[in-house]
């Protein structure tokens, strides 16, 4: 019961902040709502006893990436409101098809979830998850999800090399 209330409150916060991110005129305020949004997502992870994910969410997204966003936004210093595009509907077909795609994906997840009910975690395993959160995630990353994990690290390496090459034209 309490968990359900917490879930709905946190979800409402996440959605509310997400709406504020895209509706706020002031860019810095918009970035700050993004931080609040990430913090609420971290709270949702805690509710799912995924404490490791929660702190990584705060450390990487709220504490790392958004700080860099804020840097850029502050340095550009957009004082005047962004000009309205000459044709506000020029990308509407693309936006529409993307929204349909996301909606279809969500529907697929709901249907798939109904078809295969999640295995009910035994109480012993449940407490184990709360105590050995980090070990469990580490074990999964290096066994079942090894290839996605390595691919992600390669992707980050490529991005890093790309950034260095772009920043330093002559090495």
């Amino acid at each position, binding site marked *: 019961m309490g968990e359900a209330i917490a879930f709905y409150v946190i979800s409402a916060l996440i959605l509310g902040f997400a709406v504020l991110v895209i509706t706020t005129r*002031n860019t*810095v*305020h918009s970035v*700050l709502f993004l*931080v609040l949004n990430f913090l609420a997502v971290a709270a949702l992870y805690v509710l799912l006893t995924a*404490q*490791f994910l*929660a*702190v*990584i969410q*705060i*450390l990487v997204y*709220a*504490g*790392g990436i958004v*700080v*860099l966003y*804020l*840097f850029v936004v*502050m*340095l550009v210093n957009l004082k005047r409101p962004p000009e309205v595009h000459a044709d506000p509907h020029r990308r509407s077909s693309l936006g529409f098809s993307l929204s349909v795609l996301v909606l279809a994906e969500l529907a697929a997840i709901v249907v798939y979830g109904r078809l295969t009910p999640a295995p009910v975690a035994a109480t012993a395993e449940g407490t184990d998850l*709360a*105590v*050995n*959160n*980090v070990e469990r995630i580490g074990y999964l990353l290096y066994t079942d999800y090894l290839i996605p994990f390595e691919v992600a690290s390669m992707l980050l390496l490529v991005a890093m090399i790309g950034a260095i090459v772009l920043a330093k034209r002559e090495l």
Partner: protein
Amino acid sequence: MIIDTYVIPLLKILIVLNATLVGVTFMVLLERKVIAWVQVRLGPMRVGPYGILQPIADAVKLLLKEDITPARADKWVFTAAPIIVMVPALITFAVIPFGPAVRLFGRDVPLYITDINVGLLYIVSVASIGVYGIILGGWASNSKYPLLASLRASAQLISYEVAVTMTLVSLIMTAGTLSMVKIVESQYMAGVWYAFVQPVAFVVFFIGALAETNRAPFDMAEAEQELTGGFHTEYSGMRFALFFLAEYANMIVISSVSTTLFLGGWLRPFPNVAALSFLDFVPAWIWFLLKTFAFLYVFLWVRATLPRYRYDQLMRLGWKVLIPIAIANIIVTGIVKVAL
């Protein structure tokens, strides 16, 4: 049941918060005294015997000062910035272990507020939120110098955060856990403080800690000569005091964290030497406080001794010296771990 789940944790939180705030105000006095002694002066002497009541006088003065918001400042962000700096510094104390369980009034009361399995990461991530206060304080003032200072300060904090987190990785590899209590217990099991197992990590962590708390010789954010004060130039009264207190609270946090990680937390010196077991009559939490205090004293000592770094030297030290050393340390730790 109610006592165990609600009353005792609430009491602990109250005690820790109050002790921290009192400690912070007296840190300010201690800093003035220590620097005065280093420079062969007396320091504050007027308020109370040997100036012991100076912090109270300072607090009353700051509370009574006019609270000014610059005319073209961003009011909401300007108000929120000092709070954003202060809150992470205070909530970090939730996972710091001051001692093992003690028996009080027939109950086993552990001397920490909570012990979560990701304690160390919790501290790192909460500390990374504090950067926002500094960036936003400088930006919301709508003034040139605070903006420059806050850009400098946040670039510095982000750079050194990398080095500090890297050293923590090698420490975690040695300890095999992220829980603060278990890290101290593993030092007890190993019979040695991790400062002796991971000396390189300890030194890099300490240098990074000086930079993370914006202390001399890395106090770029408050370079008076270049920036007329720093990111809090436009702040006055209690809001300025909050920035000030947060800096000292962060010093206490990082000292307690280094004590827990590298100096054995609540353990007595040389926990493996049985001949020194007479030291156990000193309660564990006093050992913790003594070590934390020693760290804080080194912070003040460094400030009184070393001149400020230049900004480009600071960046070079962070990226080209500390981070490579920290990465090499991780690799060496891994090799040693596998070899032994």
